[in-house]
Structure formats: C-alpha cells, structure tokens
C-alpha cells in the first residue's frame, strides 16, 4: 500500500479509523471484556503524534505489530493517536509522563519543526531518545511537460531568478516538505527567503497542482507518488537521500550529491520514552527495539512501505536528534520564522 500523507484529506479519513478504534474500545470496556492495565502487567502504550494513516502512524503501528506478534514486550502494546499541533500535543503528553516506564512515542522530523512553530519549551532530546527506526527520502517532482529535464536545469533557472520558480510542498512551514526546498536553496546559494513556497494540504492537492502545471516544481516524499511516476504523469528530477531508490521511473533519478549539490536530506522517524526513566529501563526498552529490528517481519515492513533501514539507538540517536534540531533551527532562523 502507498504511504499516506501527513496532512489533508487522508488525515481526516484516517482519523475515522481512530474513532472506530476508540468506539470499539469503549464497547469492549462497557461489556467488561477490556484488559485492565495493572501496575504489575507488562502492557505498554505507544503514543502516535498524528492521525491514523499518517506517516508516524504507519511506522509506529508497524513496529508495535512486530513487537506484539513476537511477544517482545511480554504484554500488549496499546496504540494511542494524540492528534494536534503537528505533534506538539503528543510531545507535551510525553513530557508530562515523566518517569513513566510503560509509555513510548513515535516521533520524527515534522515534530521537531512543530515544537518550534508552537514555541514549546522543550526539544525531542529532552525526552529519553530510544532509537531511530527508518528514513524516508524526499523527491523533486515536475509535470511531464516541464522545461526542466534535470536537476541542473532547475537549479540554473532557479539561481538566475529565484522569484520565477514557484515551489510547492505538502506541509506547512516547519514540516519536511517545506524544510527540504529551503535547505536545497541554501545549498545552491539562493537566499531561502527568496523561495516562493506554496503550502498544500497534503500529497493529494499537491499532485493536483503539479498535474495542472499550477506550480513549477513539487517537493514531497517519493513514496506517495509511485503511481504517478510509473505512469509518466510526473517526472522525478532527484532524490534527497544518500542512495538512489528502486522502482519504475524512480531508479533513474540521481541523488543530489551525484548531481554535485552538497545536501543529504531525509525525513526520519524514531521512538522516544518520557524523561526521567531509569537507565536500566532505558536499556531494556532499547533492547526490545533492537530485537524488533532484527525480525524478518520488520524487514518485510520496511520493504512494503519503501522505508530505508536506518537504525541507530541510545547516544547515537541522541546526538542525531541534537544535530537535526540544530539544522531545523538554522533553516527557520534564515527564514525569520523563529
């Protein structure tokens, strides 16, 4: 199945799934079949910072499914979608659960940006970072009749007159689809403030705008456009990661570094625990995620969703979060959005 978007219609659609889950839970509780989570049990909760069907949800639920199937946690893992403010609401709940050793949260690049947008007084590494699970590449997309045949054509025209290129993305400012064109502009020597960015409410509206040639170029997660790329309705000029991706009309697209642009940009997702948990529990949780990562089911989930296997834990992950936080802050500062 194609990964669903972070925002927009698919989000609303997906929200319904959450409701359904909640209603069925309510029914279960009402009929007394519900499982009570006692202090002694090994049951856990996984917080998801957006709605069902979104990127965080897919990653979080895939991880939980593997952990439950292989009985890695020794109990049930209940998934709770905490929707609001681009992940800030979920992050606030995690920070408030200080010392709770039975809660985890799926987080990613979009949450970093939203914490800045909403002026939250904490960063991701203020919680207890456990592990990065996956990476997702962004792509540079144009309509089939676009004058730009390569990423070089685009960069040349863009540098000549930054105001002549209208850029679209599927996230509001601070989100991955916004940060990527801004960092790309900076990398090729364009003032990020000159970039004409049009935010769309998710991948669907962005695709429409590209198909109708309303914008010159779109920046978004490649996975959402595999259908259109395969059919030649859209063209992929470049991918943002370290290596090329596989797929019809996708494997031809070079990475930015291959094209002589010094930028590697990836959207990533990982797992955090609340602040103030014991070192022993932190090690246990990391061990569970490592065990999950080794299973064939997880490798299958990576393949099915087109995710890149980028797994790092503990202090490596903490260092990575600090570096990401710095990069987001720099980009937003350049744009005077901080």
């Amino acid at each position, binding site marked *: *199945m*194609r990964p*669903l978007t972070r925002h927009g*219609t*698919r989000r*609303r*659609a*997906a*929200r*319904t*799934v*959450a*409701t*359904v889950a*909640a*209603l069925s839970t309510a029914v279960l509780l009402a009929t007394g079949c519900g499982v009570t989570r006692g202090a002694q049990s090994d049951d856990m909760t996984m917080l998801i910072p957006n709605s069902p*069907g979104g990127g965080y949800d897919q990653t979080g639920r895939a991880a939980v499914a593997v952990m439950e199937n292989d009985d890695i946690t020794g109990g049930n893992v209940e998934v709770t*979608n905490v*929707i*609001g*403010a*681009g992940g*800030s*609401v979920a992050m*606030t709940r995690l920070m408030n659960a200080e010392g709770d050793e039975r809660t985890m949260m799926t987080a990613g690049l979009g949450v970093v940006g939203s914490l800045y*947008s*909403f002026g939250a007084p904490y960063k991701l590494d203020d919680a207890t970072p456990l592990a990065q699970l996956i990476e997702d590449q962004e792509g540079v997309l144009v309509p089939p009749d676009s004058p730009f045949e390569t990423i070089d054509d685009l960069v040349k025209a863009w540098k000549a007159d930054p*105001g002549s290129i*209208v850029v679209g993305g599927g996230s*509001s*400012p*601070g989100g991955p689809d916004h940060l990527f064109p801004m960092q790309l502009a900076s990398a090729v020597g364009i003032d990020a403030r000159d970039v*004409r*960015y*049009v*935010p*769309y*409410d998710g991948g*669907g*509206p962005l*695709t*429409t*705008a590209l*198909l*109708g040639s*309303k*914008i010159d170029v779109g920046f978004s997660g490649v996975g959402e456009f595999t*259908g*259109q790329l*395969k*059919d030649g*309705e859209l063209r992929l000029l470049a991918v943002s990661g370290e290596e090329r991706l596989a797929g019809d009309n996708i494997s031809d697209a070079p990475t930015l570094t291959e094209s002589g642009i010094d930028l590697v940009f990836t959207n990533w997702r990982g797992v955090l625990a609340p602040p103030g948990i014991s070192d022993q529990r932190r090690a246990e949780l990391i061990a569970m995620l490592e065990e999950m990562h080794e299973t064939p089911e997880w490798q299958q989930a990576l393949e099915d969703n087109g995710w890149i296997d980028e797994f790092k834990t503990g202090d490596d992950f903490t260092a990575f979060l600090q570096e990401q936080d710095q990069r987001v802050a720099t980009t937003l500062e350049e744009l005077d*959005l901080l």
Partner: protein
Amino acid sequence: MDNLGLLMGGFGAVLTPENLMYCAIGVLLGTFVGVLPGIGPAMAVALLLPVTYGLDPVAAFIMFAGIYYGGMYGGSTTAILLNTPGESASVMTALEGNLMARAGKAAQALATAAIGSFIAGTIGTLLVVFFAPALASVAVEIGAPSYFALMVLAMVSVTSVLGGSPLRGFIALFIGLTIGLVGLDLNTGQPRLSFDQPLLADRIDVVVVAVGIFALGEALWVAAHLRRSPAHVIPVGRPWMSRADFRRSWGPWLRGTAYGFPFGAVPAGGAEIPTFLSYITEKRIAARHGKDEFGRGAIEGVAGPEAANNASAAGTFVPLLALGLPVTATSAVMLAAFQGYGIEPGPSLMTDQPDLVWALLASLLIGNALLLVLNLPLAPVWAKLLRIPRPQLYAGILFFAALGSYATNLQPFDLFLLLLLGLLGLMMRRFALPVLPLILGVILGPLMELKLREAMAISGGEVDALWSEPLAVVIYAVVAVAIIAPLVLRTIRPAPAAVAVDEGLAGDTTREEETVR
C-alpha cells in the same frame, strides 16, 4: 457505446444471488453504523472495511458498495431525525429535514432523501462510466483562481439566507467567519485566535460547530422553556410520500445532481458548496412560485441538497479512478480499500484492469438500487423514533451530540467546545439570530481564504491572477448578473419574488421572537 457493453459485462460478473446477499448485508450494516451520530460515511466505510477482507474481489466490491451507500444514507438519517449532521455535507440536509421531522413529516423527508440519493448516485455513476478519463484531464486545469471565484459566488448567495433582519444575519455570518479563522495558518504556520491552546491549532471541526449550534442549542432552548410551553406532541403524519411530494421533489433531485456531480469531479470541489447552492436555488424557485415553505420544513430543501451530496460523492470517483487522487475523506478511505483489493488507481487503471473497474462500477449501481429497496420501507420505522417523550428524546440527542463531537477527534476538549457552542446557539435563539449564516461562515470562510492565499502565493501577489482562468471569468460574470439583475428588475417593476423571499424568513424570525416573549 463500447463502455455500455463493458458495463454489462461488469453486471454479468457481479449479479449472482450470493453477491446480492453480500450487498444487502453491506447496505444494512452501512446504514446501521452510519446512523450513529458523529459517524459520517467516511467513518462508516473505514469501520466496516475489514468485514470485506477475505472475500474474493468481486464479492468484496459489491459488499463495499453496499456499505458505502448505506453509510451515506445513514448519515442523512441522523441529520434529519436528530439535527446532528455527521459531516459538513449533510448540514444543509439537516436544516429543512429536521424541521420536516418535527412537523410530523419525517417519513417523507427520509423517503425523498433516499430516492434523491438513488437518482443522483445512479446518474453520477453513469457519468463516471462514460466520461471519467475525459473529465479528469479537464479537471486538473481548474486552479485556485476558479475555486476562489466559486467561493465568491457562494458568499454572495449567502446574503439571500440572512433572514428577515439583515443586521442579525450579518452578525451571525461574521461570528461564523471568526470561528472559521481559529487555528493554524497553513501559509505561515502561525496559530490564530488559538489563545495558546495547542488543541485549537487544528481548527474547530465544522461537525462540532454544527452539532453544538443545531442540536445542543436547540436542546438547551427547549429545556429553558419546558415548563412554560405546553407539551407539543409531534404529529404522527402519513408514512409515505404523497403525489404532491413527488411532484415537488423531482425538480430538486435533478437540479441537485447537476450541481453535485461537477463539484465532485473537480479535485478540490467537495460537497459543501453544491449542497448549499442547491438549497439556495430551491428556496428561490419555491419563492418564485409563491410556495415557499423554507423555514417550516420544505421537502425541496431536503431533496435538492441530498441529491447534490450524492452526485458529488459519485463525482469523486472521477479523480479517484482516473488520477488516483482522493479528494474527500470518504474517497481517501476508498483509495486504501481499492489498493487492498488490488486496484491501483491512476491514469492507466482503465486499460490495465478493466475487469475490476467495470465490476466496481456495476457494484456501485447495484448497491445504490438495493439501498433504495431496503431503506424505503424502513423510513416510517425510523420516523417513529421521534415519538419518544420529549425529555427522553432530548436527553438522547444530547448523548448522541456529545458522542458525535468526541468521535470526530477523540479529544475531551471538543466536549468543552461543544458546550460553549451550545450556549452560543441558545443565545442566538434568544436574540433571534439566524443560525444558517453562522454555519456557512464556518464552512466557506476557511475555503475562501485557502484558495485566495494559494492563488496569491502562486502569482507572487499579483491580483490580476484572480481572473487569469476562463472559468473564473465566467463565474464572476454570473456573480455580476446575480447582483445586478434583481436591482434592474426592481427598477423596472416591483419584484414579487424578492418580497416573497423576505416574507418567508421574516415569518420564521417573527415566530421565534414570539416564542421568546
């Protein structure tokens, strides 16, 4: 006519007794789940989708088609009976539908909704069969300027539902527009009117506003007068539509279909604008014929919007099948469903997997027909629900209103909002402010802003981009005619139509004011 042959092939594959049974189960399940408040068609489909897994693709399709139409119809049922619309598309149905129900014509309202849905769904699906690829390529050419022009048209039309007192109407409209401003500004990422409440950053859901103002406001209003007003028993009414009802319904059914389908077929159309335009049109036509029952339960006000809603839903199959673009919550759920059945929507779908597509379209037509057959006899049964004594009935409405609002986002905060909006609804009734302009403000304001900002962002602030598309120019011409024509007519001869419009709503307001005193 090649397509017709292929469609017949689809019917051949689909029509077996076993498949029909699956379809009937789907329709019933869909209706019963869709009837639960707060569960619109999108949620009903999402909820019941797993039921179809494990069946072979054709059986799964036809069951799915049943669930889909059942869920759509179930949503209208609660809008009509309990005044709790499950999604923004059924807000217009709730307006006159609930008034009809309270006048003892619930069965007729439900019947006209069911037949209207059937006609609109059938015409819409046939249009998809014959024109989907052609329409899809035209539809993506329509950009933000044209959508903005449509919003201007809708906004101008709002003035005709302001009610007897334009001042009160505008107050309500601007309260609605203000509520629509709350939340994150998509273009800059800045929170607006959110008072540092992260939960307000994601905008106030239209469903919560509609349920709060309609259902909760009404329940509080009734509660405030329960002791002083005599127990008003809802008349039983006849169980079936009369010949006159049919005569008054068929026009709105067809006009609603004509409004709904194009809006569904364009990627950012949605069902809100066509249901609203249909409502306005029917109101004007009724007024011109001097038979304006709007504000007291006009059957045209149910038949038209309900047909528009369903035709728009059928229209969404155009971008969904031809481009792989989900444009509404329901179609996003369906996209996931199709992928589960092995259909990969996109430009090559019609050539790659014709068997599955034609089986799907045939299933949709059969599901639609079966819905009518199963639900028409049920309309009088549902209507009996309203004969529950008033305290228990309103207690039930309050319960379902709360459940519905909570179910939208799963945030307890929405219950607090619901209560606040319910109090606002009570105050509006107390001061005879019409509620319709408020709801329209909440729906239209954000859409209008979104499209204006998008057009401006693409053009780099050049205002003339707003009339850069042919369709936009045409719509502005329509708007100009709509504004100028009545003025000209009034100068030539005193227009009875305009007076009738005012009287219709003035009568409504006066009644409410009388109740106040």
